[in-house]
């Protein structure tokens, strides 16, 4: 997730301060990973350097001066370009889990136990996300559903792999 693109997107609603941008970013996109203050001001400096934002006003505060940032037409164009580009679909061909299954099969260990342990962990996380979804807003549901569908896809892979273990054992030890 690009913080700079998200900041530009948030600034399209109107000028804002670094602190407010951080707060809104954390609420909408940060979930369990809030953006650090250092990262907020580094990102804004970079956006300033590229001409995607300007400092619209400087206000004295209790501590340091507060800068109000506004998006420029170049910044809007950058957001539009970003929104129009497809994201590269994530590939999991090098996943640790795949490696664990292959190594277990090659060494004659119980690969099914690896799959069952992983399934239980996936389901545990899915239950947690489902609880969060049920207690949350529509926006929380959107975020949780995205994660849930990905976890479900992993589980389908686990199920299919479990059904093919004997066949796979022959293939990886040949």
């Amino acid at each position, binding site marked *: 997730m690009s913080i700079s693109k998200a900041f530009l997107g948030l600034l399209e609603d109107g000028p804002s301060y670094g602190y407010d941008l951080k707060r809104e970013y954390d609420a909408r996109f940060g979930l369990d990973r809030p953006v650090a203050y250092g990262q907020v001001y580094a990102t804004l400096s970079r956006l300033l350097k590229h001409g995607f934002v300007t400092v619209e006003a400087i206000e004295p505060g209790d501590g340091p001066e507060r800068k109000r940032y506004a998006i420029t037409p170049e910044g809007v164009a950058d957001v539009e370009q970003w929104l129009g580009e497809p994201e590269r679909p994530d590939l999991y061909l090098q996943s640790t889990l795949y490696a664990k299954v292959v190594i277990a099969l090659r060494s004659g260990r119980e690969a099914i136990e690896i799959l*069952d342990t992983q*399934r*239980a962990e*996936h*389901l545990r996380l*899915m*239950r947690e*996300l*489902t609880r969060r979804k*049920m207690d949350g807003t529509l926006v929380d549901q959107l975020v949780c559903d995205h994660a*849930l*569908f990905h*976890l*479900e896809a992993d*589980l*389908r892979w686990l*199920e299919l792999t479990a*059904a093919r273990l004997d066949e796979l054992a022959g293939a990886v030890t040949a």
Partner: protein
Amino acid sequence: MSSATVASEAIPAEVGRPLLECRVLVKRFGQTPALDGASLSLGAAEIVAVMGPSGSGKSTLLHCAAGILAPDAGEVIYDGREVGRLPDSERSRLRRSEFGFVFQFGRLVPELSCAENVALPLRLAGVPRRRARDQAGEWLGRLEVADLAGRLPGDVSGGQGQRVAVARALVTGPRVVFADEPTGALDSLNGERVMQLLTSAARQSGAAVVLVTHEARVAAYADREVIVRDGRTHAR
């Protein structure tokens, strides 16, 4: 759960014992084994998902647990009593009053209105017509389909029909709800809504749920899961 050596008589009434317990069930259909030593334990007000691939035996396990099918071997203990030893009349009473059912395709009575469908289990249990109607209306409201009360099941959508089916399952205040692929015929959005309503309503009324599903996103509404593979259960 391991209980192969449990005696078939004199079930001790322990504190904290499961509300419903299936012990090492075996069930065959002709030559085809459906259950081969499956066990399941359900606490009061607990929601347990029974998962597994098609043909793994999960629906057969639900049917045995609910007393719809009799296992060839093993025991089903409900509230300290072995269901297989109960007289038919008592088993029928359990299914009518203590258990609720939700199936994949609603199985509403097509000639009755949605409200009459929900009131039906109450009427069968001897509740007077007017009270049954009021309670049915209240449950339709809780499932957000109060406006369908007068409609026939054939005139409502699949998702709406399942909400009516959930209301019917819960209207008698059952201690256990058996849900067999309750979202299997629904799209994602309707499936999610039905699961939210089913689990919230069950938790509010303190009903336990046995939820058979092959979908992990549906199972995630449960407190824990039991996996059925080749007629055997694997609990985590």
